[in-house]
């Protein structure tokens, strides 16, 4: 039997009707339609599904969606606020912290949680802070550099290509 509830994701309230066994990840992706968070292992091993729950990191694949009612859920889509991409995301682009990109949403969420609790982490602390997130491309060095850069607050704006009507292909930075 489905249970009615409300999930607050990135500041927006979404009424949902959920089977009690549905995970927070499935609810956010399939019911709400925010597909930034990924399902990698579905087993709390890989961190691709990482979200913040009242500011604390959670493997959303292994958290019951209905338990999140009344809590503030933050996904990768909510990290930058009103900006298109925030400084951490820009640093990932500039430091080549993105390869295939599948782990990136979880990495960004974990790095956000890390920087909130430890605004100036050492490389070792970054590696430990992100060790619940696996990158199958093994692109960890760029990811660590990006978090260092974001922590140092030295992330310039992205270079933007001139826009010509609708004929310009989508812009890819990095």
């Amino acid at each position, binding site marked *: 039997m489905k249970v009615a509830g409300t999930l607050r994701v990135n500041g927006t309230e979404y009424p949902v009707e959920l*089977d009690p*066994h549905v*995970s927070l990840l499935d609810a956010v992706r399939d019911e709400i339609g925010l597909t930034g968070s990924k399902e990698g292992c579905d*087993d709390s091993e890989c961190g691709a599904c990482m979200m913040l729950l009242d500011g604390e990191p959670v493997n959303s694949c292994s958290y*019951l969606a209905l338990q999140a009612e009344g809590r503030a859920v933050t996904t990768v889509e909510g990290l930058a606020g009103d900006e298109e991409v925030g400084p951490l995301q820009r640093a990932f682009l500039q430091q080549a912290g993105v390869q295939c990109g599948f782990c990136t949403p979880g990495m960004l969420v974990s790095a956000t949680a890390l920087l909130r609790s430890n605004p100036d982490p050492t490389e070792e602390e970054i590696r430990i802070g992100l060790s619940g997130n696996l990158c199958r491309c093994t692109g960890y060095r760029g990811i660590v550099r990006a978090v260092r850069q974001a922590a140092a607050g030295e992330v310039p704006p992205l270079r933007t290509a001139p826009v010509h009507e609708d004929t310009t292909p989508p812009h890819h930075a990095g």
Partner: protein
Amino acid sequence: MTRSFTSAATLDDALSALSAGARPVAGGTDLVVGARQGKAPLPQAIVAIDRIGGLGAIETTDVGLRLGTLVTHRDIVASDEIRTRYTALADASAIVGSHATRAQGTIGGNVMNASPAMDTGGPLLCFGATAILRSSTGERSVGLEELWTGPGSTSARAEELLVAVAVPVPPAGTGSCYVRLEYRRQMEIAVVGASAVVAFDGDRVRDARVAITALTPTIRRVPAAESALVGTEATEDVVEAAAAAAAAASTPISDVRGSAGYRSAMAAVIARRAITAALTRARGGDVPIPASPALHGAS
């Protein structure tokens, strides 16, 4: 039976739900993951206990520590009282899962999951912790050695909820340590673990507790290892003998993480490191928290 989910606002609500057959969930880091892995399906009736007030506090009193069942591993690691007086417990909570596991996973869930490989179990057992179990009909206190009856099983009744873990105050000057053999730093489960809690009287060991993890069907203390230490000056030979006793008490299984033979061989090494680090701390020396990575590469 249809699936149901309720979020308990009060302890009484939760206990009523348990009496009616629901099973509790707090952080979900064992229950939901276990279901994903096919260990046990998710319960049909679930009662979330994570909103109940008053169950998430670390209280220190004259008689000891009271960990509310909703205290997270992160809370434990952040507690100065625990880092100072119950150091082995901080060693353990600091290496549970990842930052997400430590932010969501609770001490109550960890204890009731009753894994023989759980990190916090050995330290709690050595410190003499008891489980406070509450049901709609009353409350009882059960030592962890009686609570854990086998891998994943406890002596708690289905209608009982673990509301707190009580840990008596260790004597002044106690040093303690938990060490595990791990293949990686995070998202790891103990291949082999050992805990030691020691107190000196002058140069001699007055009291010693040693427990082994992932080496027996339930985490257990090893009296032969403890008596090898008590009354001695804890020289290297003595520590070696105590570690050998810990290994001798092991009856490990073979699984994907290690063969029984490998676990038995490593039991002595890990026990020696845990005992040595506990002695160092009891003598006032510094061993970082968590001890495990710090001691990797040690002899």
